[in-house]
Each structure stands twice: as C-alpha cells, then as structure tokens.
C-alpha cells in the first residue's frame, strides 16, 4: 500500500520533469530565434533536471525489474538457487547504495552551499538527488527482496 503510494509519487514527479525539460528546451529555442534573447540558465538547468529524471527513472525501473544484467549463466541454475543468488545480488546492491549514500551526504555538505553557474540557486538543491536516489533505490530493492521470498509461499 505504502509502496504503491511511493510509486505513484515518483511516477508523477518524473512525468512532470520530463514534460518540464521538453517545454524548457522548446522555450529556449523559441526565445533564441523569435524573441532574440536567450535564456542563459536553460542549458545548465536542463542538464540538472536530466539527472533527476535519470535517478527517479532508475527507481521506477527497479520496481519493474528492468535493470538487466547478463543472466545466461544464472539461468542455468535450479530455481531455488537462482532465488538465493538474486537475493545475494540484492544485498550487495543495498550495501552499494549505503556506501554511495554516506559519501554523497559528505559531498552535499561540502559543496551544496555554492551557487550554480548561471542562476542564484544553491547547488545543493540539485545534487541532493544522489542521496535521495540511494534511499529510493534501496527501498525498491528491499521491496523486491521481500516479494521474491513471499511469492514462494
């Protein structure tokens, strides 16, 4: 139930971000050619928004098991062993996200207060996506882990 709410929320934010960057890209073209004054911050902000789309998208992809690996070797294993193996991978992923989370917090604390190049906004507003993404992806993996073992019974 809570997971479904989270899925909906992330999907909604992602959709708005994709729509937003599309519109922003077109508006900046329009400004350049028709109004003859460019938006200096459009390119930098669009790049940052792509980071947000990417990491929210990564969460959505985890929820649908779309992050693929090369599974031809693992496919040969009996089903029980496969399940154990994928659980090991999930555990490794959670450790990975925890490591990145810790170091990204350090990073945000150090440079988060600086302003970005083209607008009076703090960098932290954008780079905070990395720790957020770590938490979201870890949640998605944990949910997957639970589901994998519940499906069996």
């Amino acid at each position: 139930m809570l997971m479904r709410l989270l899925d909906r929320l992330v999907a909604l934010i992602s959709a708005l971000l994709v729509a937003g960057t599309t519109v922003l890209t077109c508006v900046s073209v329009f400004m350049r050619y028709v109004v003859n004054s460019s938006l200096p911050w459009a390119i930098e902000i669009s790049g940052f928004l792509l980071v947000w789309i990417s990491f929210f998208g990564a969460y959505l992809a985890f929820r649908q098991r779309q992050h693929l690996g090369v599974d031809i070797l693992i496919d040969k294993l009996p089903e029980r062993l496969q399940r154990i193996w994928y659980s090991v991978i999930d555990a490794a992923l959670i450790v990975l996200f925890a490591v990145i989370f810790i170091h990204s917090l350090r990073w945000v604390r150090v440079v988060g207060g600086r302003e970005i190049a083209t607008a009076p906004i703090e960098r932290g507003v954008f780079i905070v996506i990395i720790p957020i993404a770590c938490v979201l992806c870890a949640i998605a993996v944990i949910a997957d882990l639970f589901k994998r073992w519940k499906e069996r019974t």
Partner: protein
Amino acid sequence: MTAILLGVLLTLMAVAFPIGFALMGTAAVTIPAAGMDLISVPVQLFSGTDSFAILAVPLFILMGELMSATTIAHRLVELAVSLVGWMRGGLAHVNVLTNAFMAEMSGSATADAAVLSKIFVPEMERAGYPKAYAAACTAVNATIGIIIPPSIPMVLYGVTTNTSIRDLFIAGIVPGIILAGAFMLTCYIFARRYNHPVDEHFELRRLKASLRGALLPMLIPILVVGGLIGGIFTATEAAGVGVIIALIGGAFMSPDFTWKKLYDALVTTARQTGVVMMLVAGSSVLGILVANEQIPQHVANGLQTFAHNPVLALLLINIFLLILGMFLQAAAAIIIVVPVLMPLAAKIGIDPVHFGIIVTLNLGIGQQTPPVATVLLTVCAITGLSIQQVMRYSKWFLITMFAVLMLVSYAPVTTLWFRHFIS
C-alpha cells in the same frame, strides 16, 4: 590495478549483476584500492548524467512513445502502402519503407519494432504471408531506425567519444538508405522464391490522399533532421521541438488520444531513461579509474601489431563488436567498450564519425542476435512466436545486414560523402 578492476567487473557481469550498478560497484571496490576518495562516486554519478547533449535520449524515447500512442504510425503505413504496395511481396516492402519513414522520427529500433509488429504481423498474416516471416521482417527492418537519424545509440556514441552528434546523424543517412534498399532486395528475393502475393494496385489518387494524411508526420523529420543538418538546432533542441509537434499533431489527428496516454508516455520515458542513464552514470564513475590506468592506450598498444594491417584490424573490430552485441545491449556496449576501442580505431586511421556508424550497425545486428537480442525479443514477446521460428527467416536478413556492414566498413565514402556534399 587494471587486473583488479577487470576481474571485479567481469565477475559481477557474469553473475547477472545489473550492468550499470556492476560498473558503480566495481568503482566502489577499486577506488579505495587506488588510494582515492570514495566521494568521487557521487560526484561522477551526478556529473556523468548532467548533460544537455544526452537529454536528447529521453526526448527521442518520448517521441517514440508518442508515435505508438497516436495514429502517426498508421498514417506512415498508409503512405508506404500507396507507394510500394503494388510490388510483388508488397507488404514486406511496405514494412521496409514504413520503418525507413519511422526512422526519421524515432531513434530506437526497439520502439519501432514494438509499434510496427503490432500493426504489420497481423496484417501480413491476413494477406497470406507466414507469420514468422512477417515478424522477422518487422524485427530486422527496425534496425533502419537507429541508422537513419535520429538515433539514440549515435547520441550515446557522440557523447562518450566527444564526436559531433550532427556529423554522426548526417553520416547515417546514406548507410540507412543502403540498408533499406538491401532489405527490399532481400524481400524481393523471398517474394520470388516463395511466390508472395501482390497485395494492392497502384493508384495515384490513393497516393495523393495518403500523402496529405502523412503531411504532418513528415513535417517532423523535415524540421528535426533538416534543422539539425542546417545547424539551426542542436540534437537535443531538435528532439524537443519534434516532441511538441508530434504531441500537438498526434493529439489532433488521433481521436482516442487521452491525457492518460500522455501521462503513461511520460512515465515510460522516465523509466527507460533511468535504465540507460544508470549505464551512463556507472561508466562515468568507472571512467576516472579507466582514465587513470590508461586502459584504452594499453589496449591500443597491445594490439599494435594489427595496426599495420588496417583491413584485418577493422575486420577483427567488427567481429569483436558482433560478438559483444550478442551479450550486451547496444547502450551498454557503446558506453563500456567504445572508449576502449577508440584509440585503436584512431591508430589504424578510421574517422571517428565513420567508426560511429560502424559501431551502430554492428550493435544493430547485435539487437537481432540471441541471447541478448532486445529487438528480436520484443517482437517475439508481442507476436507470441519463439526465437527459433523468427530466426528461420531473420537469419537471411542478418546476412544482408552483414553485407551492408562490410560495405560501409570498407567504403568510408558511404558515410562521409554526404557531409562533404552538403558543406
């Protein structure tokens, strides 16, 4: 250090670790061993994905999604029917031509195959073609989608190798047309051999009507590709403008287009972007180590002996890429392997733009060859056919693709001439 890096990476990949995260994991293990600070992991995750050029990828994905949500694809089919439907094996030719039209709006072979297999496979089966032949045609023809601009693999190649995306797009036009021609020839041979039906008669009136119907869809490539070649837009801006036209036009022309469909297209775009971008992010993290260790230079030096024989070297690169394409998705192959191959290609004197087209063609074939065959598997999933059934026919088309690959590899004029011509 290089040994640790490769060992960890290959182990993680062999045991089905999701590829993008295998790259990050390898970096997280190797960075402390190299005496560096792990803080560079989040820094690279962010800076690797922060790119206005790569923003073209989600926008082209969105354009593909909009095409399947509206009647744009159907209008292109109708145009193709009225143009080549009268030929023997007509619908197979229509299939090729529709894919060539779609290719100017879509940058992903998987998206094209997903849209068109829903339309063509039932239609061709009804007209008396074997279902597996219809599926094979749709799967292989979708490759045209990543050769004729726009092309998502080319955007990724351009970004990873610092090659102009515009030049790559221009270079893809002629090989794309050659590929389409070669597919039509293959379809013609099939049609003769198996006596495929002549489906329609040529009618000028029908052609006029379908041209009118396809006016708006054709406006997208004219604006997008034209604007890009003319230097009016960057690839990203062209994609953004294309999406808006596709959306407005598609919404007007398709009575069953709803807000819900638009929302779903946006969410799907974000999700697929997430998959591709985790590869980009992971390789960006690993990239600092790869650069530190000068791995590409070592590879190029190790293969120095081949550099004296460019013909052989190019053949070996092609074979390597074909095998790679069987096991990796196109985006992963480009992001992981191309930076390593670039110095070697430069050494034997291959133009980076020409090399980009060679890579894209190779990986286009890779999308058709199991075990990892994204396009083939998409078509199989939609049609309910098995890989073996479709491969019975598609293997002949793979030979065609290989022939085109060889032609393009050894005749740089196919990719570079057009750029000289327009400049």
